[in-house]
């Protein structure tokens, strides 16, 4: 199991949860970012994601380290999907283990914010009306 990973295949949280959890952890927070059926009310047909794959996994590891400087957390795993995603499919999983739950929640939310800000991964909205555009 690679903790930081970009893949064209569907994501499964189970192996990430198993990886992050150690006997000292009392909390595991799993965030799934999912392709939803609309953006600000406009109907979405599907999404596609493109990555700079050689860099993205490295950035994920750096974001986990950033979070570890701010909160007492344990292991972190981040997987991101690329390619075409149907509505309801997970685009990203962020899983954080920690002795206590507040740190796990805050670190997972922080990591997601940072992924959205700097990870070299781009989303294209394919609208139900046939148009498509990169979300920038």
């Amino acid at each position: 199991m690679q903790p930081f990973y970009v893949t064209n295949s569907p994501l499964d949280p189970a192996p990430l949860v198993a990886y992050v959890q150690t006997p000292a952890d009392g909390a595991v927070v799993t965030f799934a970012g999912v392709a939803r059926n609309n953006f600000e009310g406009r109907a979405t047909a599907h999404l596609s994601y493109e990555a700079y794959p050689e860099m993205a996994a490295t950035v994920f590891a750096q974001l986990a380290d950033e979070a570890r400087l701010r909160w007492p957390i344990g292991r972190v795993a981040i997987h991101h999907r690329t390619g075409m995603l149907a509505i309801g499919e997970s685009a990203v999983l962020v899983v954080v283990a920690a002795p206590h739950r507040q740190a796990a929640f805050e670190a997972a939310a922080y990591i997601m914010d940072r992924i959205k800000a700097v990870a070299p991964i781009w989303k294209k909205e394919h609208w139900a009306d046939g148009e498509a555009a990169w979300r920038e």
Partner: protein
Amino acid sequence: MLSIRIRFFAGHRDIVGQAELSLEVQDEATIGMVWEDLCVHYPRLAGYSGRILFAVNQQFATATTLLADGDEVAFIPPVSGGRS
């Protein structure tokens, strides 16, 4: 002169029309200078100035980072920044 390789993604790739470009740049060139040159050749890139991140050899860099022969340079267009 230095040989560098540039990677383009997402909206940038759509504008440039290719995913990679090999370029000769002068010694002492910075990544910011390369970006400015590209904006001259591809004016639609200029709208991204100030909104991109720079990377050299898959590590974040700044506009003033000096390039070396063989570097892989990337300009990272804004990521989704969405709320979802």
